[in-house]
């Protein structure tokens, strides 16, 4: 007896919940942890990147159409002179001498017209020069010296067919794709969980009818549904993806229903029923939290599915509209320009694929971590 009382005096041992166990198992899974890191990284990049980037996602650089991805700055040294002379030609000027010193072009030009500072605008309009000065105008105004500092820019991922920076576009596309994936998944899960628990918990005729409805919706061609939604909601992609989520809930409902069927036979649910807890209360307090394991797993697998679906719709030209973009849009553009500009396909595909990879591994890891059979 004394032993018991002594034990009672000590602080109670903190129990380990099943969630703690699951978390530890997940932490031990290296692929899953790496995937989580990758996913978080991509998410942060997508959110912060477009703000930090010197290029606006919609800024068009006409002098840099489809330039390859490179760590070096543009313009290339051999690009500068042809561009300079062609601008000078457009401005009806003759280039007498041309020197490139300290990233500044210094040239002496002649013209039949009077040269003044306004002619600098011809050069400023190009993406290669910034802050062009026309100095030393000769007395008759026919000859002048142009000082044109070269404006260097980096296109780490190259540019697309319109001369827009692919890095910024890939990141902004990531924002759109991830948002869409998350949004549609949340909608799908909300509907699926509510539908599945209600159907499974009430059983009998309710279950029969509700599942029959799911069966019928299953047999409808999915693409027909989605296109109908696009037709209805038009180009508003937020609304559209809420709608896509509203289509994707069928699997979720089935999974949750199966889970509910086994949970409702558990003692704690029976106890709650015996104590007269309302059905609503039981569903909210006991059933829904206990279905969360498979729901979370399915969610990580549904997000990539929705992202792929969005890419597919964008490929058909039904998804996100220009100038906004998504990984799907970029990839379908890249696929069209594959032969001449492979970087347009490589970088968005890299981002999309690593996101999907990460989500798949996280899903697998979560399934292993939450699967009670594995214990």
């Amino acid at each position, binding site marked *: 007896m004394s032993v018991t009382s002594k034990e009672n005096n000590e602080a109670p041992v903190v129990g380990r919940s099943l969630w703690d166990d699951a978390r530890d198992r997940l932490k031990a899974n290296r692929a899953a942890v790496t995937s989580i890191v990758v996913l978080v990284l991509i998410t942060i990049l997508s959110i912060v990147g477009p703000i930090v980037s010197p290029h606006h996602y919609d800024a068009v650089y006409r002098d840099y159409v489809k330039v390859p991805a490179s760590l070096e700055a543009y313009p290339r040294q051999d690009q500068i002179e042809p561009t300079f002379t062609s601008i000078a030609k457009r401005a009806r000027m003759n280039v007498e001498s041309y020197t490139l010193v300290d990233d500044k072009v210094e040239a002496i030009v002649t013209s039949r017209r009077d040269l003044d500072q306004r002619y600098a605008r011809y050069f400023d309009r190009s993406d290669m020069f910034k802050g062009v000065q026309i100095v030393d105008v000769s007395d008759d105004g026919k000859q002048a010296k142009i000082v044109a500092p070269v404006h260097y820019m980096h296109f780490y991922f190259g540019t697309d067919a319109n001369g827009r920076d692919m890095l910024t576009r890939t990141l902004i596309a990531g924002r759109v794709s991830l948002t869409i994936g998350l949004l549609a998944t949340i909608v799908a899960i909300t509907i699926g969980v509510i539908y599945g628990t209600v159907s499974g918990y009430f059983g009998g005729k309710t279950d029969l009818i509700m599942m029959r409805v799911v069966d*019928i919706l299953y047999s409808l*061609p999915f693409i027909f549904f989605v296109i109908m939604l696009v037709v209805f909601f038009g180009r508003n992609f937020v609304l559209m993806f809420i709608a896509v989520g509203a289509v994707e809930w069928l699997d979720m409902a089935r999974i949750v229903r199966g889970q509910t069927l086994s949970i409702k036979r558990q003692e704690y649910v029976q106890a709650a029923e015996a104590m007269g807890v309302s059905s609503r209360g039981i569903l909210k307090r006991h059933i829904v939290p206990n279905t969360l394991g498979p729901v979370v797993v399915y969610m990580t697998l549904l997000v990539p599915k929705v992202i*792929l679906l969005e890419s597919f719709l964008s490929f058909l030209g039904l998804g996100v509209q220009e100038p906004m973009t998504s990984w799907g849009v970029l990839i379908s553009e890249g696929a069209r320009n594959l032969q001449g500009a492979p970087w347009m*396909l490589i970088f968005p595909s890299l981002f999309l694929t690593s996101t999907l990879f990460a989500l798949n591994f996280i899903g697998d890891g979560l399934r292993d971590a939450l699967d009670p059979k594995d214990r």
Partner: protein
Amino acid sequence: MLRYVSGRLLSAIPTLFLIITISFFLIRIAPGGPFDLERPLEAKVMENLNKIYNLDKSLWEQYLLYMKSVLSGDFGPSFFFRDFSINELFAQSLPISMQLGLSALTLALIVGGFFGVVAALRQNQGVDYSVMTAATFGVTIPNFVVAPCLTLIFGVYLGWLPVGGWGGGDFVNKVLPVITLALPQIAIVARLTRGSMIEAMRSNHVRTARAYGLSGYTIIVVHALRGAILPVVTYLGPAAAALLTGSVVIETIFGIPGIGRYFVQGALNRDYTLVMGTVVVVACFVILFNLIVDVLYAVLDPRVRFD
């Protein structure tokens, strides 16, 4: 068995009926009509067109008319592809899509199943990891990325295969579309087979078979694979329905005159009969393949009974 199958087929009738009804009214309440052009047609022309296609009748009358013609096996004339009836369009395109889908399905089953079994037998070894990584790639890379890459490599650089077109069903024309179509399926089949094969190899009946001293081939193919293939069959049912009814992406990229394109074209052009036709065809395939799956289940797993 026969009774079960006929019962299932009978119970498909109300499902089909509901599907037709739902999609009929869905496409009709979509804004726009089949004859809406950028520049509107003349009122009289429009009126006549509507009259020919029965669009001037009330929705209920149209619905009943459509139901009647569907029951007699006639899907009606196409609104967009004038001069063609839906039956003619489908008679040309459905065999092509089915041919492609069936080839892809067979390829997926053989290749995916093989790699899945190999990975399961070498669980947690190099082979297993490489197969699973390749499979994850297969699932995550969308087919509209795979398709242009393959065409570029085999069609343009190497020049072995044509980059597109159907060519009257030539073998070389089918290679790339079938591979592209099959790749994600191979990946999924491999993953499923691996998972269930690992479980099957640990089960009691396989251990008993080993104890009898049966050959490795007999154990794996006859005893383990028979049970392990069940989840694959479950998955392949709906997948087969989707594959056989054509893929929009593949048919667009490779320029194949299959049925897949009609889904998008029909819905976008408000070609009511075309949309309805595709819906009915897909629904029939889904129902049929679900039935085949259930029957196969009973064949493969003697514990399943039709009661």
